[in-house]
């Protein structure tokens, strides 16, 4: 079974294009614009890897990550943000994010990290 990805980002142009590109590569992917929507979607759908922005209106990425760790322990999270602050990086590490990437990244790089995260889950990541 292919890897299932959820992208969470409040930047609509970025979200739409990256979702579309992942779909073009045959990946099962959803995209949501807020932390609340992400958590809601996770309750109804099986997801392997979450690509998560930090600075978002409403619930921020760190809070989303914290709740995922509580409610969905089997999910890997890759932080993808424009903010390089050491504080967020430390928090991400504490909350066992799989990786912390600074925007912008090439899609190839992101895909490679998604594959790696998926492999850590022991899932079938084609």
């Amino acid at each position, binding site marked *: 079974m292919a890897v299932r990805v959820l992208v969470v980002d409040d930047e609509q142009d970025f979200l739409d294009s990256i979702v579309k590109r992942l779909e073009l590569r045959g990946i099962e992917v959803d995209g949501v614009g807020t932390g609340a929507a992400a958590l809601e979607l996770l309750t109804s759908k099986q997801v392997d890897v979450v690509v998560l922005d930090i600075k978002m209106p409403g619930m921020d990425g760190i809070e989303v990550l914290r709740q995922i760790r509580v409610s969905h322990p089997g999910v890997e999270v890759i932080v993808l943000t424009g903010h390089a602050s050491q504080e967020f990086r430390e928090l991400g590490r504490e909350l066992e994010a799989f990786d912390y990437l600074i925007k*912008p*990244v090439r899609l190839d790089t992101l895909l490679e990290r998604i594959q790696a995260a998926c492999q850590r889950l022991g899932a079938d990541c084609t």
Partner: protein
Amino acid sequence: MVLTALAVALIPLYVLGAAIYIYFASAQQQSHRAELLDLAVNRANAVQLFLAERTALLEALAHTASLDRVDEPSELAGLLRILNQRQHSFVDLGVLDADGRHVAYAGPYQLQDRDYAGEPWFEETLARGVDISDVFLGFRGVPHFVVAVLRDDEPRPWVLRATIDSELFTTLVRSGQVGMTGDAYIVNRAGTYQTPPRFGGGILSTAPFDTSIAPPGSRVVLRTLPDGRRVLSAFSWLPSKDWLLVIDRDPREPLAPLQLAWKLALVGLAVGTVLIAGAIVFHVRQMVGRLAAEDRKRVAMEAQLAHSARLVSLGRMAAGVAHEINNPLAAIGQLAGLMEDLIDDDFMRSSPHGELFRTNVRKIQEHVDRTRDITHRMLGFARRMEPHQDTLNPNDVVEEALSFIEREASFREVRITRQLDPALPMIRSDRAQLQQVILNLLNNALDAVSNGGQIVVATRAIDDLVEVQIGDDGVGIPRELRDRIFDPFFTTKEPGKGSGLGLSICHTVMQQLNGSITFDSEPGRGTTFRVRLPRETM
């Protein structure tokens, strides 16, 4: 400050010295006056006694002899011998009748039959029975005085007269002389010298002062001589004769030993002043120097803090800008990437510009990558401004620092040679601070070399230390400036070109990191800075 300290230390010393001197001088003067008065009274008593004895002798003689015996010159000469047996104080003896005629004479002069009627002493003797004359020249023209007593026989009273050896008398008075300039003499009420003074005139001349300044009895008076000298005089009136015994003394003379003490004290005072002044100046200078050094240190610290704060805020601003740019940049990158993904064979065939589209969409992504490199470097810079401990390889820090100057170095054709030890251990230190130090040193090296010069960067491990060397073949540091290059605000660059803080900051940072910074320099040949760091900062 120095003056205040000097005044506080020295004024009490001077006041004390002056007070002690004045006190002792005054005490000395007092005792000197008392001594002088004692001497005068003592001499006056001695003179009085002398005169009284002579008078008593004559009186005894006159009342035991009879006129018919004493008018024999041989008899009279015998009596003179008896009188002078104990002390040769009588020069001659004479017997006068009531009319003042010398009826008999014994002595070295030819005075027989001289007439003394009308002489004051003769009249006085007739009137009062005894008299001691003032000194006078007499018939012989030699100063002398006489003692005369009256034998009141009826019907022929007679007078016995004797001349007193004026030398003996003068000696008696002069024994009251003291010191080199002291004088002792007798004047009568009219001020005529009755014995010769040592200075200022002979016997029978007039003394240069009015005897009325001498009150009855005895008294010490400070008076001024005609030549302007001051003299301390002890006056003592003889009780039985209208004579004033005077003892003069220079008032300064008894103070001479005190003068020596005063000179010694002055020398001591001068030496003390010099020592105290020296000590004060030395200590005050040291204190001021220390304060100035503290002040410089504080200024340097503040400058460094301000510099750090500036860098931190600059870093935050850079980070803020980078964050804001990263989000739209990410969108641009993905949108362009999506466009590239969607360019398929159909699109290429249907549009004559298909190839151009594909190329440009790729170029957009390449430019996104370039911009990302910039924003990521800005974020890294910001992160480096916050103090923390990193595990780092000094070679990496050197490479990062070099990346900042390589552009300018290549413009100026400065060759950069790396001699980095690949086996260098990782160390725990503050990456940002270390990078700032190395960057400052590299910038200095770049400023020091001429176009086409060379910079050598080397790293190596020494025991528990890691060393980074940055050498250049530039102008070098003049010998006289070597002590000052780490001082804050010291710069040899043109005004406005250098803050003078670079090396000062390096020095402070290396202290904070428990490391060290040293240098070798040879003017004209170049300079090498050595930065040494412990493997563990803590």
